[in-house]
C-alpha cells in the first residue's frame, strides 16, 4: 500500500524532472559552456511562468504564451549580460541584480498578485499534471519528451554553427577567442539571453503543468539546475561525449533529481527540509572534484617522497 504511493508519484516526478530539465539545459549553457554562474534564472523562470499565466488567462493560445515567455527570458538574460559586459559588474552579482529586479516586475506582470491560477478546466493548456497518469498524447511526460528533443536538436545545431563554436570558445578561453577575432562581450550576452530564454520557457511550461504561476516559483531554481547538471555528469560524464548526449544527460539528471526527491519524501522527509537537502547535496557534488584533486596531489607527493627517500 505504502509502496503504491511511491509508484503513483513517479510519473509526476518524471514530468516535473523533464520540465526542470529544460531549465537545467539553460543553466548548462551558462555554467558549463560560458563558464559563468548566472543567478538570473531564479527570476526568469518565474517571469516565464507569470507571462504565460497572464497571457493564457487573457485568452491567448498556449503557444503564443510560450513564445512571449521565451522573449521575456531573452530580455532578462540581456539585462544581466549588459550589467556584466557594459558596466563591468561581476557575472554573479549581475544575475542577482536582475533576479531581484524581476521579483517586482513579475508581480507587476501578474497585476500585483503573488500568483495567478490557470486551470486546465477553463483554458486550453499544452500540458497538465492531471494527465500525468493517462496513456494518451496529452500526457505531460510525452509532451515534454517532444519539447526536450526539439530543444536539444536546436541547440546541437546552433552550437555546431560558426557562431555557436565562437560561443564555446568564448567560454573555454576568452583570450584565445579575442585573438581569433571573436567579440567575447557579444557572445556572453548572447549566451545569457539564450540560457534565460530557455529557463523562462520551462517556467511557462511549469506554470501550465501545475496550474498556476507563483512569484516564488523560481526560488532556488539555480541550485536545482546545477544539481541536474552535476547528476547528469556524474552518471554519464564518462560515456557521453557527443554534445547532444551531454544535454540529454542534463535532462536525465533533472529527472533523477525529482525521482530521488519523491523517494526521500516517501521515506518520511519533511517537505520543508527539501531545499536544505538539495543545497547540501549540490555542495557535496560541487566539492567532489576539488577534493579529488587534493587527494591525488597528496598521494602523488607522498609517492614522490617515497622514491626520493
Amino acid at each position, binding site marked *: 500500500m505504502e509502496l503504491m504511493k511511491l509508484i503513483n508519484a513517479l510519473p509526476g516526478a518524471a514530468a516535473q524532472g523533464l520540465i526542470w530539465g529544460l531549465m537545467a539545459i539553460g543553466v548548462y549553457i551558462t555554467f558549463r559552456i560560458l563558464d559563468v554562474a548566472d543567478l538570473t534564472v531564479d527570476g526568469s523562470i518565474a517571469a516565464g511562468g507569470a507571462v504565460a499565466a497572464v497571457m493564457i488567462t487573457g485568452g491567448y493560445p498556449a503557444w503564443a504564451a510560450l513564445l512571449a515567455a521565451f522573449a521575456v527570458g531573452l530580455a532578462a538574460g540581456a539585462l544581466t549580460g549588459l550589467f556584466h559586459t557594459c558596466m563591468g559588474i561581476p557575472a554573479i552579482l549581475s544575475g542577482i541584480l536582475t533576479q531581484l529586479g524581476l521579483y517586482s516586475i513579475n508581480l507587476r506582470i501578474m497585476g500585483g498578485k503573488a500568483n495567478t491560477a490557470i486551470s486546465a478546466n477553463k483554458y486550453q493548456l499544452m500540458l497538465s499534471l492531471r494527465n500525468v497518469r493517462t496513456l494518451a498524447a496529452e500526457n505531460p511526460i510525452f509532451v515534454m519528451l517532444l519539447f526536450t528533443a526539439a530543444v536539444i536538436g536546436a541547440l546541437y545545431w546552433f552550437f555546431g554553427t*560558426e557562431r555557436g563554436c565562437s560561443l564555446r570558445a568564448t567560454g573555454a578561453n576568452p583570450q584565445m577567442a579575442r585573438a581569433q577575432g571573436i567579440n567575447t562581450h557579444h557572445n556572453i550576452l548572447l549566451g545569457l539571453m539564450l540560457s534565460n530564454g530557455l529557463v523562462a520557457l520551462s517556467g511557462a511550461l511549469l506554470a501550465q503543468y501545475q496550474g498556476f504561476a507563483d512569484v516564488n516559483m523560481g526560488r532556488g531554481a539555480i541550485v536545482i539546475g546545477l544539481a541536474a547538471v552535476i547528476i547528469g555528469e556524474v552518471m554519464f560524464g564518462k560515456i557521453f561525449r557527443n554534445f547532444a548526449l551531454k544535454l540529454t544527460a542534463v535532462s536525465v539528471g533533472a529527472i533523477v533529481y525529482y525521482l530521488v526527491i519523491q523517494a526521500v519524501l516517501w521515506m518520511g522527509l519533511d517537505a520543508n527540509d527539501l531545499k536544505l537537502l538539495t543545497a547540501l547535496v549540490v555542495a557535496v557534488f560541487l566539492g567532489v572534484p576539488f577534493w579529488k584533486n587534493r587527494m591525488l596531489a597528496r598521494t602523488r607527493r607522498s609517492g614522490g617522497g617515497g622514491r626520493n627517500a
Partner: protein
Amino acid sequence: MLKIQNISKTFNPGTITEKTALQEVSLLLREGDFVTVIGGNGAGKSTLLNAVAGAFPVDRGSIEIDGTDVTRLPEHKRARFLGRVFQDPMTGTAGTMNIEENMALAMRRGKPRGLKWGITPAERERYRECLKSLELGLEDRLSSKVGLLSGGQRQALTLLMATLQAPKLLLLDEHTAALDPKTAAKVLEMTRRIVEEQHLTAMMVTHNMRDAISTGNRLIMMNDGRIVVDVSGEEKQKLTRKDLMDLFEKAAGKELDGDRLLLS
C-alpha cells in the same frame, strides 16, 4: 606594414604600483621584416607586442597596420590583421575543444561568424594536410581535445592556427620560453620555416640572445620602455653577443641586466 608612432603606456597611473611600460616608442616594419625583440625584465617587450595586439589602449601615439589606423580598435577587431602566439601554451588554444574546431576558429579569424556549419569536410582535409607538415602525428587526431596535447604540441598548433590565414603581422610573445630546450628549438625552426614560406612580417619577443641573433633580419633591444638598439641587414648578420652587449651599454648607459637573458 606596421607603423608605430610615439606610443606611450603607463599602467596604474597615480598609484603606488605606477609603471611606465612604454615611452614614446616608434617603430616601422616593412613588408617581410622579421624582427626579434630582446631586453631585460620589465623592458617593455611584451607590452609593445600587446599594445600592437590591442590587449589595452595606449595613452598616446598611434599604431597603423597595413595602412589602417588601429589605435582605437578593440582587440577582437585587430585580430583580422594579426596572428598571435603566446608564452603560455594554454593561452593560444581552447583546451576543451578539439583540434579541428580550434583550427576552424582560426580559419574564420576576422570574418563574420554566422549560422553556417562551423566546420566543413573540405577544410577538414586541408587541416589534415597542414598538420602533417608539423610532423607531430596530429593529423590522425583531428577530433582529440587540445587539452590532451603536450605544451610543445599546443604551441605548434597555435603557430599553425596563427598562420592558417596569412596574417599581415605575426606576433610571437616568447612563444618558446615555456618549452623544454629540444621542443623550443623545434618550434623555433618551424617558426622560421613558416615565416619564410609565407613571406610574413613578424615580431618575435625572446629572452634568448642566441635566438634573437640567429632569427630574422632585424633586431631591436628595449630598456625602460624604449627601443635602445636597432640593427638590421648585414650589420645584424654579423652581430655577436659581445657586440650586442656593447651596443646596449653604449645606448642605455649601463651594463646589460642579464638576469633573465640567456647569454649562452
